């Protein structure tokens, strides 16, 4: 009984994703089960449409830039938050995580107003900053998880052997915690690549990431080109998740 319920819930979680992938390879205009023949025409359609290709390109380099910046400012912060012994550390920790807890629609509305008043609205920079604000906390989380397991004695040993603190960190600590940091960067990329809510408020004509382009497409048409776009994105995410799994283990990543 319990097994059946559990299996049903797993199926419920996977069903819509499976259906999207099947619809993407299906020859007919409407998806029926069993599928009516195999076809790659929806993918051909996706790759032939200029707006989708521009969106894919934008999402890709936005994701890479977001991941790089998130690590650049997130990793030092994680080091300070894990190792530091200073007043107000718990408060700072909560503050740094707050973009994760606050609904993104609120962050989006606030940023739209803010960037408009600054005159930065509808620029690539506004989009990038917005993404970094919501992805940096994830990097801090994964980096902290690995930092907690790192024995600081190793770093001290390097220093007593004559390495400068900076060199000891880069050559010893970073080497050990690298999987967590890279997993965080991959996660930041995935979050940015699939971000919808925040992006919606910060996009403009000619500056639409893939999820926004997909949403716009879905509002007016329902044809399986959207399924091909979705299947492609699901494939990207799956590869990323497997990468994270290899680097740090999904259990630790999920936080239990």
């Amino acid at each position, binding site marked *: 009984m*319990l097994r059946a319920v559990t299996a049903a*819930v*797993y199926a*419920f*979680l*996977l*069903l*819509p*994703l499976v*259906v*999207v992938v099947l619809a993407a390879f299906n020859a007919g205009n*409407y*998806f*029926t089960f069993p599928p009516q023949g195999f076809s790659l025409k929806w993918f051909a359609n996706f790759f032939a449409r200029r707006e989708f290709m521009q969106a894919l390109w934008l999402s890709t380099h936005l994701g890479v830039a977001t991941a790089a910046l998130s690590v650049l*400012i997130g990793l*030092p*912060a994680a*080091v*300070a938050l894990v190792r*530091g012994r200073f007043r107000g550390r718990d408060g*700072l920790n909560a*503050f*740094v995580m*707050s*973009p994760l*807890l*606050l*609904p993104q*629609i*609120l962050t989006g*509305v*606030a*940023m739209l*107003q*803010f*960037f408009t*008043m600054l005159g930065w609205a509808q620029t690539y920079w506004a989009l990038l*900053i917005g993404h970094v*604000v919501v992805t*940096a906390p994830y990097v801090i989380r994964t980096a902290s998880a690995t930092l907690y397991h790192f024995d600081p004695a190793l770093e001290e040993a390097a220093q007593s052997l004559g390495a400068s603190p900076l060199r000891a960190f880069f050559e010893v600590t970073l080497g050990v915690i690298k999987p967590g940091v890279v997993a965080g960067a991959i996660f930041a990329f995935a979050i940015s690549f699939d971000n*919808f*809510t925040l992006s*919606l*408020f910060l996009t403009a004509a000619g500056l639409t990431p893939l*999820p926004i382009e*997909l*949403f716009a497409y*879905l509002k007016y048409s*329902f044809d399986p080109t959207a*399924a091909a776009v*979705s299947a492609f994105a*699901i494939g990207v*995410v*799956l590869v*990323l*998740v*497997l990468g994270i799994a290899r680097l740090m283990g*999904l259990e630790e990543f*999920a936080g*239990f």
Partner: protein
Amino acid sequence: MRALSRVPPAALLLGPLVLLLVVFFSAPLALMLGISFTRESFGQISWQPTLLQYARFFSDTFYLGVLWDTLVLGAITTAAALVMGYPLAWHLARTTSRWKPVLLVFVLSPLLVGIVIRCYGWMILLADRGLVNAMLIDGGWRAKPLPLMYNRFGVTVALLHVFLPFMVLSLTGVLKRLDPHLLEAAMTLGASPLRAFLEVTLPLSLPGILAGSLLVFSLAISSFVVPILLGGFKVQVLPMIIYEQMLSVFDWPFGAANAFVLLVLSVALIALYIRATERALRGIR
């Protein structure tokens, strides 16, 4: 250089991030709060403090109705997520199967696959000419398609799908830390499995239930992608009003006031959530 070396390293390490968040996260929210107390005329915001926007919201039965509907939708989604998430979390916390990493991918990937894609999956399933209706009609069970989409049912199903992983992850953490010997002890003392669950497991997992529920509830009441795509603008929720006011009507002060109402609700829930997770991490002793 000497002045620099005297700066505490923690401040140096945290500086860039804190600066980024203060300027591009806190300041925008403060600005939004400010704008909610202004009025808009001919596309310009006039900066004289007024409670006009809040008066408009709380005196109009339409907006109050939308707020109520939003909360009800959130409550139904949360309850369903708890009922479906509990067995799954139990299984994930206890299983020793070698398929566990695969099961974890199952639970985590919907979390990473974009919300628009997941909604689209449900649209393929629930539309009038969608998979479920096609099967019902082809199988001869129904003559006309069942209304599964563009109503509360469709919105609830998709919301449940989108936020269920958050419930599962909150519960798994707590259930994993629960000592299995306690349950065995209860059963060797004569409790039925059901009674052991109700009197031992359930009370001990209460912090996880609370944390997961608050998380799902606050995410569900702030979602607008799902109501737009699966509700087809027929199911109105507070975030949709915000979206329309900001991006279609361009009435920023009213949009900001609506957002602030949602913000107050969210912050209250977050505060409760933090207390619940702290208790969950400490465990009930």
